[in-house]
């Protein structure tokens, strides 16, 4: 285990709100990555840093927790790793970070770590907050009582990090700590038999295994059965044992606290927070301020992201041409430029919105305002099976579902988080806007009702409302059907207000961008390639026949090169595999009022909803780049059904199509990001199926009523 042969493995453990992520970010900077814990939907944040001149260390940032008794899937990971010496993440040393202004709760977790006999270091954080509260801590005395190294740090500014590294790099044999709680008297025989069975040396570990064996992945099934038997035979009341442990620990902790902590009556922060809360959680002003904040965030999300998105779009529309010039022409070059590069463009397109949204969310979290949002919204959201924290991701779904689904991380209860993820795609995102715009322009007259209400605007608002109501109704249904074993607790700290730590905000933005590009990006590029193949290939030599035909048709010979090319592209798309699929699904979509050309657009717009407009332009071979929607609109209006000769885009069809786009999960990026966030294909596929079915039924009803 000499540090020169392999890096020291360090685990970072602490309460929520203790400054754990800040410390992690200070230690590792951008030298961190996200991996998976095997078999669970929990992210594993690992970083590495230079410990001394000759050695490095890897550090694992565990989910924040109050004690080693987990109450969520995230927290189970901690005990799973710490109870299993064979785990690749089993640490050599543990840093426990504690909020000095609230030492009591931090010591509960620390005392459990000490009793597991891990070499522990206490990183005492937030001494500045403690000082303002007039709390004084006698650190040398605390060190004596606990028997471990203590380093005073400030995770906000980075002071004490150097000292922490020094302490960690030393091989110090007297840092095992002084045992706090003795588990043996509570169930002596049971613990001895478990120690023999596993085998274990540590009685406290046996005590934890006795209570938590059922979900520990490191315990094989046959041992689980034996432990179950042992527990039954010993007649030990496990819940009572747990309760006794907490009471005993807190009794000892209270003695420690009375020895080393002197409390004044500093109430500066609390007073300030209290006064601010009087406004921010007020029954009227609280909601008004929240709405104004949301309004500002969305304005920036729409407007601020528009310019960089345009840049990305322009860049990626020129890039294929440049590559075509460099590379020899051929099918591989086409695949690379029109399939892969276009897919990459689709991925990078989302970055501006992801970065902006996560900057805002990080700031709301850092300042403590997010806890207030939970507080004032929880009752309302709970009736829909959601959580107070669902509000921000749900509302940001209006900009784009992709970053919003990633933002559901802030919801700790799995069921509430899953429902939120499930309904976010029903919020009308900005990619639907071009689709809505062209269809509304096609069917709704540009008139004003009562002289001031714009009918087209009213329809647009109706579509947004429709999506929102569909989302809430879906949530109610899911609330009944999703069952979880996990018992959900709401319990959370209402922290005092703080100024945000900008380094954290920055790291959080980078982290989310990286996760999106590398995890969801892969799926998006893959689907993009598939869609490209479907739209650009046809069976046999259909394409060359089309080119010949068009060129040989005398009535086209007077047209210029560009228009002929447009005509050829249109014909090619119609005969491609996408066209064939479009034709073959026509019997299914005809009850909704769609023909096979709309069918092609439905398939290609799975890449992104706004592709609908582009596909329609190609199919109707709209010429001229200026006023494109205008001409497309005219062509669509003129379009007649091949068999009946009646107009295709009747109000019934247009409305049916709008409702279809309002509901259907026509977005591969959303699918990819749900896959990434739920760590499997089960939920994205259920969601795809449900939303497609709902879209179909709703469109059918609308078409039937209006026809």
């Amino acid at each position, binding site marked *: 285990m000499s540090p020169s042969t392999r890096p020291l493995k360090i685990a970072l453990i602490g309460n929520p709100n203790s400054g754990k992520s800040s410390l992690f970010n200070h230690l590792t900077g951008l030298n961190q990555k996200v991996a998976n814990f095997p078999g669970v939907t929990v992210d594993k944040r690992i970083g590495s840093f230079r410990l001394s001149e000759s050695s490095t260390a890897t550090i694992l940032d565990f989910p924040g927790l109050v004690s080693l*008794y987990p109450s969520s899937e995230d927290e189970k990971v901690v005990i799973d790793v710490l109870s299993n010496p064979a785990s690749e993440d089993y640490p050599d040393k543990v840093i426990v970070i504690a909020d000095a202004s609230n030492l*009591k709760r931090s010591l509960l977790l620390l005392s459990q770590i000490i009793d597991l006999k891990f070499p522990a270091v206490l990183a005492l954080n937030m001494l500045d907050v403690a000082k303002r509260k007039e709390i004084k801590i006698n650190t040398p005395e605390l060190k004596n009582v606990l028997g471990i190294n203590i380093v005073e740090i400030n995770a906000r500014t980075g002071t004490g990090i150097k000292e922490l590294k020094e302490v960690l790099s030393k091989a110090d044999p007297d840092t095992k700590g002084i045992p706090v709680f003795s588990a043996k008297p509570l169930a002596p025989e049971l613990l001895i038999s478990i120690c023999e069975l596993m085998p274990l040396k540590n009685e406290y570990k046996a005590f934890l295994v006795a209570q938590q064996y059922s979900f520990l992945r490191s315990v094989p099934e046959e041992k689980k059965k034996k432990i179950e038997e042992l527990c039954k035979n010993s007649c030990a009341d496990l*819940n009572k044992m747990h309760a006794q442990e*907490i009471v005993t620990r807190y009794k000892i902790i209270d003695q420690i606290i009375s020895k080393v902590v002197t409390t004044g009556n500093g109430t500066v922060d609390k007073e300030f927070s209290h006064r601010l809360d009087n406004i921010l*959680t007020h029954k009227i002003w609280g909601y008004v301020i929240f709405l104004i904040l949301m309004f500002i965030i969305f304005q920036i999300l729409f407007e601020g992201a528009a310019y960089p998105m345009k840049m990305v779009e322009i860049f990626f529309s020129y890039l294929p041409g440049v590559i075509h010039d460099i590379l020899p022409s051929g099918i591989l070059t086409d695949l690379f430029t029109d399939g892969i590069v276009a897919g990459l463009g689709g991925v990078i397109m989302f970055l501006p919105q992801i970065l902006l949204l996560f900057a805002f969310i990080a700031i709301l979290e850092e300042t403590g305002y997010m806890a207030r949002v939970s507080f004032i919204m*929880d009752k309302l959201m709970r009736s829909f099976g959601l959580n107070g924290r669902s509000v921000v991701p749900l509302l940001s779904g209006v900009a784009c579902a992709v970053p919003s689904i990633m933002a559901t991380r802030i919801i700790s209860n799995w069921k509430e988080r899953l429902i939120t993820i499930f309904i976010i795609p029903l919020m009308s995102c900005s990619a639907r806007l071009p689709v809505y715009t062209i269809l509304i322009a096609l069917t709704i007259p540009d008139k004003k009702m009562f002289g001031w209400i714009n009918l087209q605007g009213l329809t647009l608002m109706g579509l947004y409302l429709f999506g929102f109501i569909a989302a809430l109704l879906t949530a109610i249904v899911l609330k009944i059907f999703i069952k979880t074993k996990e018992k959900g607790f709401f*319990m959370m700290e*209402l922290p005092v207000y703080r100024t945000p730590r900008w380094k954290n905000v920055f790291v959080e933005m980078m982290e989310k961008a990286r996760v999106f590009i590398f995890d969801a990006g892969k799926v998006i590029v893959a689907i993009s390639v598939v869609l490209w193949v479907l739209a650009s290939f046809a069976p046999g030599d259909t394409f060359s026949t089309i080119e010949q035909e068009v060129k040989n048709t005398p009535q086209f010979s007077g047209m210029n090169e560009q228009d002929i090319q447009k005509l050829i592209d249109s014909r090619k798309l119609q005969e491609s595999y996408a066209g064939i699929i479009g034709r073959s699904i026509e019997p299914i979509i005809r009850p909704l009022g769609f023909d096979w050309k709309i069918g092609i657009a439905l398939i290609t717009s799975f890449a992104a909803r706004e592709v609908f407009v582009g596909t329609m332009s190609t199919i109707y071979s709209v010429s001229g780049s200026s006023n494109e929607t205008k001409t497309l609109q005219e062509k669509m209006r003129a379009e007649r059904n091949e068999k009946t000769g009646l107009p295709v885009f009747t109000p019934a069809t247009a409305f049916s199509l709008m409702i279809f786009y309002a509901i259907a999960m026509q977005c591969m990026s959303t699918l990819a990001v749900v896959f990434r966030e739920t760590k499997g294909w089960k939920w994205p596929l259920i969601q795809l199926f449900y939303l497609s079915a709902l879209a179909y039924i709703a469109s059918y009803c609308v078409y039937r009523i209006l026809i």
Partner: protein
Amino acid sequence: MNFIRFYEICTLMRTAANLKTGESAIIDHFSDSEVSLKLMEMGCLPGEKIRLERIAPFGDPAAFWVSGYCLLLRLEEARTIILDESKVYN
């Protein structure tokens, strides 16, 4: 939860959910063993003083001041905290 409510009414025991804003009391015991474990870990121990700081606009959840910090609890969670009536704080 309905059973707990019924039990409460029958025995006329006051819970943390019955506190008025600004009122303090001492925690006696808990009526739900699973919730109690989490509550105790969060610092709500028997004998500890608990004060209701504020209630959310729609009457739920509520913010309690306990063992040196502010804890948000839904009412169904607060209702499992039974108060010690013999010691009254103001």
